[in-house]
Structures are given as structure tokens and as C-alpha cells.
């Protein structure tokens, strides 16, 4: 990766985050959606489900996945407005740099959604964990966000001009991120045996690597008419 390529990755990510810091469309939509999922879980299953910790982990990852899908849809929609993405495609570097830039910015946003969802499950569903586990949980959220963004950016760009983008994206995205949901729910389980944790971390890392590689290799063909 040369300097020019890295510069484009940085500029695309920086631009996305600057636009988001001004419009706040992505985070507002995703935060409200995630919060609603967790609050509804709290009201509906709060008393009925015996194991609150299982409920909390399930609610956390549902909130991350569906909140993330809503956020992803908004984040990529800005590229369709005024066909701004065409301006990026005219940049004289390999177009995979644009993909990586958008994955970086989406990862930051999904991580923020995941962190806030974690705060919500702690407050509304009494999810408790030791402070020493916080770094592990945050690492899981970051790794999950990378994989989620790698798939989500590719699919969102693919459906940029589809009128059904907002409804179609979760339908296509959720089956593809099942490994993230499984690994996420397992790795946020308190007292998970180290061997199991290691195995799930390897699955999560392998998934991230595979989807990033697939997106990096195919982005050029996805964006061309």
C-alpha cells in the first residue's frame, strides 16, 4: 500500500465522519432504533425470561445488527445524493481505497452504536460484567464492527440506486453477518472458557479477513455501470 493509496483511505474516512458530525443522520437513526429494541426487550421479556444475562446478550447483538443496518443505509445514502460517489471514483488510485475508507468510517460508527447499545443493556437489562471484562467486550464490538462494515458497505453501494434499499439491506445483510452474531453472543458471555473464547475470536478474525478481502477485490466491479 503506497502513500497515495493510504491518503485516499484516510480522506474518504475523514470526509464521511465530518459529514456525519454535521448531519448526525446516521447515528441519530441508529441510536434511536437500537435503544427501542433494548427497551422493548426489557418490557416484553424482562420478567418472563429467567436468565437476564442471556436476554441482555441477545438484545445487545440484535440492537447492534439492526441499528447498524439502519446506520449503514443512511451512511451510504449520502454518496447517492448528487452522485457524489462518482467524484470519488474519478480519483486516480485503485478504487479499493474508497472501499477501505468507507469501511473505516462505518467501523467507527458501528462501534459507537455498539458501545451505546452496551450502555443501554447495562441500564435496562441489568447486564453486569467485571471491569476487567470491559476491554474484551469492546474488542469484540470493534472486531464485529469491522466485519459488519466490510459486508455492509459493499451491499449498500450495490443497492445505492435501488428504491428498496432501506428494506432490502437488512434482508440481505443479516444472513451474511450470522457469524458475527454467533461469535458476539458467545464472546460476551461472562466466564467463557479461554479455549472457547480463543476459538470464537479466531472465527471472528477469519470472518473479518475474508469479507474484507472479498470487498477489496470486488469493489471496482460493484461500482462500475
Amino acid at each position, binding site marked *: 500500500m503506497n502513500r*497515495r493509496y493510504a491518503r485516499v483511505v484516510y480522506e474518504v474516512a475523514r470526509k464521511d465522519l465530518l459529514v456525519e458530525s454535521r448531519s448526525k443522520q446516521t447515528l441519530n437513526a441508529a441510536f434511536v432504533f437500537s435503544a427501542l429494541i433494548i427497551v422493548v426487550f426489557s418490557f416484553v421479556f424482562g420478567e418472563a425470561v429467567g436468565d437476564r444475562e442471556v436476554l441482555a446478550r441477545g438484545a445487545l447483538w440484535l440492537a447492534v445488527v439492526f441499528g447498524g443496518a439502519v446506520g449503514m443505509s443512511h451512511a451510504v445514502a449520502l454518496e447517492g445524493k448528487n452522485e457524489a460517489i462518482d467524484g470519488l471514483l474519478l480519483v486516480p488510485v485503485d478504487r479499493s481505497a474508497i472501499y477501505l475508507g468507507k469501511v473505516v468510517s462505518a467501523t467507527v460508527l458501528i462501534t459507537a452504536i455498539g458501545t451505546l447499545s452496551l450502555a443501554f443493556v447495562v441500564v435496562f437489562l441489568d447486564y453486569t460484567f467485571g471491569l476487567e471484562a470491559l476491554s474484551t467486550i469492546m474488542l469484540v464490538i470493534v472486531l464485529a464492527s469491522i466485519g459488519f462494515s466490510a459486508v455492509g458497505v459493499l451491499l449498500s453501494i450495490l443497492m445505492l440506486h435501488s428504491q428498496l434499499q432501506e428494506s432490502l439491506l437488512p434482508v440481505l445483510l443479516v444472513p451474511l453477518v450470522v457469524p458475527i452474531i454467533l461469535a458476539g453472543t458467545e464472546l460476551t458471555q461472562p466466564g467463557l472458557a479461554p479455549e472457547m473464547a480463543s476459538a470464537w475470536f479466531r472465527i471472528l478474525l477469519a470472518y473479518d479477513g475474508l469479507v474484507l478481502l472479498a470487498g477489496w477485490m470486488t469493489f471496482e466491479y460493484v461500482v462500475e455501470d
Partner: protein
Amino acid sequence: MAVVSVSAVSKHFGAHVGVDDVSFDLESGETAVLFGANGAGKTTLIRMLASLSRPTDGEIAVGEEPLVGGNASVRSRIGVVTHDTMLYEELTARENLRLHARLHGVDTDVCDELLETVGLADRGAERVSGFSHGMSKRVSLARALVHDPDFLLFDEPYTGLDQASLKRIADVLEDLDDRTVLASTHDLARGFRLADRLLFLYDGRLVGDATADAFEDVDEVVDRYDELCRGSGVADDDRRSRAGVPR
């Protein structure tokens, strides 16, 4: 020497043929205007020349470098203005230009000069979301020039503009005589004034290629287009209407 070389280029959208076996070269400093009815394939051809769309068949080269499968750096020679401004509305005009300057690896100091050129030096700190279509189009023109390309593509640069923006953009385009330009426009008079050469497109095919000097005025151009399309089965009035000529 040909700056742009288009060889037997076609673009198919399923069963529909958008551009059919088009070939031409553009010399350095030449300004060619694509003349054709709606649906003739002007936008499709321009998108392929901008590397935004991949030809189904044929080859396009800028300089010696093929546009498809060649080095990505060839895109640094191309500047594009289309119907859409390619701007981010949440960013200011200056931020949009600086973003593109940094993406192209050029000095951002040029952005203020370009804002001055398009008459928006005092509006550079305002977000594009508050701009009229004409102002956005002027920023878009500055965006296309930010990396000083030697091959410029303009797809309907005059459409939907107020008089002030129209004059400013027309002035800038007329000052670009050292660059190779390919433009399409429905403003026949302005297009004719700008052109060194006219390329006539009909139903995706290049049906004529002539120097602008061969015509006295724009009416002659329209008549020539009519002649070239005759026999296509489309009624005269309909052809003239599709070409943007009042009945």
C-alpha cells in the same frame, strides 16, 4: 497527436444498445461537441470516457494508456462535469474542493483561485446545501478543474442554470482552449460557438463527424443532423423535437 482514442466502443444494457460501435480520436486542444437527440447515447458515451462505466466492447485510451485495465493514474488527466454535481451538501464549497484536491494529491491552495474563477470566492465558507443549482454547478466545474486535467468532459453543462451562472460557466469553458474538451449540450447555439468539431450521434451510433467551420450557423447544423438521421423512420418533427429544436 490524439489525446483520446475511442475504438469500436459499444455499451449494451441487456437487450438495449446504448452506444453502438463508436470510433473517433480527439486531438490535443480540440473541442468537440456531441450533438444528438435524447437517448442518442451522449451521456453513456461520456460516462465511459470518464471511466465511470465499462464498455461492453471496444477500447478507450487517454494518451497511450487504456482506460479499462490500465493504470488508475490515467484518471488524473480527466475532469468531468455531469448533470449531477458530485458534491457533498453538508460540506462547504471550499471543503468540497479541498477534499477533491487532497484526493487527487494536489495543493489545496488552488481551491481559492478556482472559487474566484467561478465567481464564488465570497461564498466558499457556505455549505453547498444552501446553494442554488447554478451555484452548485459552478462549484462542480471548479471541482472538475481542481487537478488541472488536460481532457475535460461536460455533460449538459448549461442545463437548468440562471443567466449569471450560464454566463460564468460559458466564459470559463471558452477559456479552456488549451485543453481537449468533449461536451454534450442541448443549448445548440452555445455548443456550436464552443465547438471546433461536431460529432453527431443517433440511436447510439456516430452518424456524422464534421468540423464546425463547415457550418454557417446552428440552423445548418440542425439541418445536417436531420439529413444524417433521415431514413431512420422517425418523423421530421419528432427528430427535431428530440434534438431540442423548437418546432
